């Protein structure tokens, strides 16, 4: 039997006005985010004279780099139909692991850093194995992993914050290249690399196909599980690098320093237009969302809005953005 859904969409697009045609493009979400970001910049620079200064912009860059790194790697994972809630917890564990290996066991700092990144990748691999081979729900697997990893970080240090002052190492968080802080530079490199990976390579095509329809992808012989596996490892590594950078920036490793940022990471990915159901999204959308959330944070702080109200604002922006996107999708009659 022929269902209505099979037939009705054939008329899409042709007879629409320019607005709907624009909204129908997959890139329109990113454009709308960009416009919103510019608007935010304009509003804050009108309100506060300190906002649009080089110094403040650099500060925003340093603050968002840590979240941006995790959100960057989380984006392809969610596009491919996965999810990693343990990423921020991994960042916390990695910081204290380096501090313990260096401070308590006298390891070379770089060796400790490499070991920590390997650990991040390994945790990602465990997440991936549970989600792909055992086909467990990623929400539950990585929620469990988040709890395990957060607990492990507390156990390692007995809940205490460990100092981590090593000049070469701290440069990773505090150093500058041509006056620009290193963390946002690294973040941008990662975004560019992931964008090329997603748009230009065979692997990138698989990411969208697997997330768009895993069953169809399996039936045309695509390596569905391998793609997801690689992305879980990548997410774990991104958590490790983010944790390393945060510890380097703060000159100390606190076991619970990173975990509260998980929601911001996920919020940025969703706000950036990546579908939680998989198959749709881009890292540039995520980058804009990270910039928007970071700018909002900074601008509200400059204007003495309490951090409690900032949380409320963040939530409102996220819900508004997601609703708008949904309305847009429905307006297109899908």
């Amino acid at each position: 039997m022929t269902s209505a859904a099979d037939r009705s969409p054939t008329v899409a697009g042709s007879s629409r006005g320019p607005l709907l045609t624009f909204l129908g493009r997959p890139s329109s979400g990113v454009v709308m985010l960009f416009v919103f970001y510019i608007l935010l910049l304009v509003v804050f620079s009108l309100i506060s004279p300190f906002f649009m200064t080089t110094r403040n912009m650099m500060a925003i860059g340093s603050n968002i780099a840590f979240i941006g790194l995790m959100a960057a790697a989380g984006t392809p994972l969610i596009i491919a139909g996965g999810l990693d809630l343990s990423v921020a917890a991994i960042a916390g564990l990695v910081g204290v692991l380096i501090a313990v290996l260096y401070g308590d066991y006298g390891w070379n700092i770089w060796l400790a850093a490499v070991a920590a990144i390997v650990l991040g990748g390994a945790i990602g691999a465990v997440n991936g194995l549970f989600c792909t081979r055992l086909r467990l729900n990623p929400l539950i697997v990585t929620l469990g992993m988040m709890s395990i990893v957060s607990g492990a970080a507390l156990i390692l240090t007995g809940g205490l914050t460990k100092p981590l002052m090593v000049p070469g190492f701290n440069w990773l968080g505090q150093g500058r290249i041509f006056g620009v802080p290193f963390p946002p530079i690294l973040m941008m490199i990662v975004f560019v690399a992931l964008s090329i990976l997603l748009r230009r390579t065979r692997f990138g095509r698989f990411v969208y196909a697997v997330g768009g329809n895993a069953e169809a992808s399996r039936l045309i012989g695509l390596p569905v599980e391998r793609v997801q596996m690689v992305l879980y490892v990548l997410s774990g590594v991104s958590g490790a690098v983010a944790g390393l950078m945060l510890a380097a920036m703060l000159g100390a490793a606190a076991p619970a320093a990173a975990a509260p940022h998980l929601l911001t990471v996920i919020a940025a990915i969703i706000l950036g237009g990546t579908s939680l159901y998989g198959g749709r999204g881009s890292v540039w959308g995520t980058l804009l969302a990270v910039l928007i959330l970071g700018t909002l944070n900074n601008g509200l702080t400059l204007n003495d809005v309490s951090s409690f109200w900032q949380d409320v604002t963040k939530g409102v922006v996220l819900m508004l953005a997601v609703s708008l996107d949904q309305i847009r999708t429905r307006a297109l009659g899908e």
Partner: protein
Amino acid sequence: MAHAATSSNSAPRLEMRGIGKAFGGVTVLSDVDLIVQPGEVMALLGSNGAGKSTLVKILTGVYSRDSGTVRVDGKEVVFPDPRAAVAAGVRLLPQEISVMGDMTVAENISLADLPVKRGPGFPVVDDREMRQRSRGLLDQLGFASIDTAMLVKRLSVAEQRIVEIARALAGKARVLVMDEPTAALTEQEAKLIFQIIARLKEQQVAVIYISHYLNEVFEVSDRIAVLRDGRNAGVFETRTASRGDVLAAMLGRVADDLYDIERRGADGDEILTVTGMTVPGKLDGVDLSVRAGEIVGVFGLIGSGIETLGRAVYGALGPRTGGTVLVGGSTYRPESARVGKARGIGFVAADRKREGIIGDLTVRENMVAPFQDRYVRGLFVSRSAETEQAKRWIDLLGIRTRGPEQVMRTLSGGNQQKVCVSRWLVDSVKLLILEEPTRGVDVGARHEIYLELRALADEGLAVLVLSSDVEEVAGISDRSVVLDRGRVVGTFGKGASPAELMAATTDDPAFHAA
């Protein structure tokens, strides 16, 4: 209870007149009448695409009608949604069993209308009343043996069906539509359903019985209404009707223009040889072969094994298959779709939306996905190479699209199907397996797909089509095979008629014995 709906006058229980429906300009039903008396079992027959599902969906409030009237007990009704139909006593037993396995029998039966009693300040579910009502309904159907406190997932499939029927009868059921109620059941279990239908007749319920099994229809119905191409094609008194008349009404004269496909005798190399293919519970020792340049059609009804055979050969079922498969003369162990693809097999799944297309991606991306390696230049995918290939395939198959960058989801069913076929048109693919190649495809595009399959076969491709559309299999195959309950029950050369194929599958001794 079920017979509480009294008809004071002599109006039919259900009277649908002049029903018309079109989707996006394509007429699916035109001027269809269906009249059922109280206590009558009306079988509804028709090939795939004849309009049965649409008619039922209009009756049960899923679709709105474009024209015509529906009366229940003489009173005109309009159902804006399925709830309204249920409230008016029009109930549906869907083809797929839909019960909540982790709830009790009583809860499943009463779910739509839970009895409540006064609780501590707020109403609470009245468990005792719920159990009693369910008990009453089950007893009425003759199943005192089913415990109302049992979790539904612990029941057999047939018992789950019975719970579903009891649920459909809760309140004042006037019309019950049963869509292939025995599809998932053994013959023994099917008998239970027939017993229930006899009871429903006593209770003056009007039953609309949809089935592909002619024997079943002749056993259980009072009259048979046949639909063809969205129109009435005759109503028969079951007692006096002949099987041949009913089949002729159902199938019509084979639409010459749709199936004007040339047939060939096959003399190419044997590309696929399957011996004793067995999948527990689905296939039982199936032998099959396909030669280069040949279209082999496998016909079977739902549950016959056609849903499984193509996948088992391709490898999509994993290594859970018995028997041997030779591809191009050498043994092939079906393990996974990847291995099947590497061995030169292409596969087009029946459920396009769920298993075929990647809706959010473009036509180009959908086309190149299986052989993405071919478009990699150095490190990167060459988009221009992809676009070039996509354009070639769009031209070759006459795909109606705004271009390679159109989002797949927005194409019509027929054009989506062509994209799913085009994917496999690379030189390494020697055998193309298609499940239900024209399901949900309009007539014009169907013809084009048939012609294209013929052209591909003529270029040396081996084509294996698995379909529950008997006309399709008869109309395009160089050789056809009929499957029934997991076994091959007939093999035919080119030119076999739909009636011959249908007869092979419905000659089921178990039903004759009844």
